[in-house]
């Protein structure tokens, strides 16, 4: 059997913020060409894990490899080369408000290439066509809906023809129809352009619409990794509770502490 190429590898990753351990021994691999969805409740550490994968933050211990390079101890300037090969779609879209759609999408091309403006302009038209926004080049982000801003962010993420695109909560704050549009776009881009995708989300509809594999995070650990079918049929009650969105189950939203009354009266 052909061995699959690993493009991201996280090894025994631990991250502490003060005395709080957010990631507690994460082992995870991402294979070339797949869409891996990292799901879990708010505050479970999934966005923190994503930021480690792109070298934005450094772990307390453990290693991170991106496209065959150990990026654990590298800082911004040393990460430039490998970062040119990845794209990032942020939860907030992270567009520059004072720049038009075309200027936002062309930013990485102007920063990292020697291409002539006339060639960049053609590339922008091609990228905006892929996300269904051709004709909106001259508008400002404030003149777009939330879903359109997400798509502009996507066009910018794929501007440099990345090998991997990382998505942080791509459907957060969108209505169900626009969320489906964004899901379909992520799936189309992955399939048509053979892009590897790593998606962080807690939107269960998105998970099963786009994932080849799913990793569920809970309390800083990977609870389970598997295909959509394997996750749907998981015997783990925590996975099942998360999928069903049920209040009752082993996952508690509120920490039950015995010292509440003491806290009130101290």
């Amino acid at each position, binding site marked *: 059997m052909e061995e699959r190429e690993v493009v991201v590898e996280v090894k025994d990753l631990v991250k502490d913020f003060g005395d709080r351990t957010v990631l507690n021994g994460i082992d995870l691999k991402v294979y070339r060409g797949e869409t891996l969805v990292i799901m879990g409740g708010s505050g479970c550490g999934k966005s923190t894990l994503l930021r480690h994968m792109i070298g934005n933050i450094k772990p307390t211990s453990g290693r991170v490899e991106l496209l065959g390079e150990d990026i654990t101890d590298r800082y911004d300037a040393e990460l430039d080369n490998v970062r040119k090969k990845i794209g990032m779609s942020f939860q907030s879209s992270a567009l520059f408000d004072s720049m038009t759609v075309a200027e936002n999408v062309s930013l990485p091309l102007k920063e990292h290439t020697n291409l002539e403006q006339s060639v*960049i302009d053609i590339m922008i038209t*091609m990228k905006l066509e892929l996300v269904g926004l051709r004709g909106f080049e001259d508008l400002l982000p404030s003149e777009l809906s939330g879903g359109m801003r997400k798509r502009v962010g996507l066009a910018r993420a794929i501007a440099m*023809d990345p090998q991997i695109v990382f998505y942080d909560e791509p459907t957060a704050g969108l209505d169900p129809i626009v969320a489906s549009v964004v899901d379909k776009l992520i799936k189309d881009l992955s399939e048509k352009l053979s892009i590897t995708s790593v998606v962080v989300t807690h939107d269960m509809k998105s998970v099963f619409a786009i994932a080849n594999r799913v990793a569920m995070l809970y309390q800083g650990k990977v609870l389970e990794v598997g295909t959509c079918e394997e996750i749907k049929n998981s015997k783990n009650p925590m996975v099942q509770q998360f999928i069903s969105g049920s209040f009752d189950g082993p996952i508690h939203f509120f920490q039950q502490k015995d010292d509440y009354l003491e806290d009130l009266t101290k």
Partner: protein
Amino acid sequence: MQINMEDMNGVTIVRMNGDIDINSAPDVKKSFDTTVSEKKDKVVINLKEVGYVDSSGLATLVEILKNLRSYGGKLKLTNLSAKVKGLFEITKLDKLFDIVPEEEDAVGTF
């Protein structure tokens, strides 16, 4: 990226070898400056030895096509590998360019 240009019976044949990507696209664009300034109106680009064309490479080919068309010039692309042809199809550029299987066929059909 190696670019070889040859004039054959009034047709400019350009043979490329290597990937057309963000690194090589500016050179590819520059290599057509003379072709455009001399208003060569029949151009064939043979992509037989081109393994990959990224979006900057595709955009560069579109820019070359635009420049040629500005004075009535014509461009044909030949010998695309299945992978490269797929890239043209995804971006719908297969409908923009005149894509011909073999170089000989292209030369004879202007």
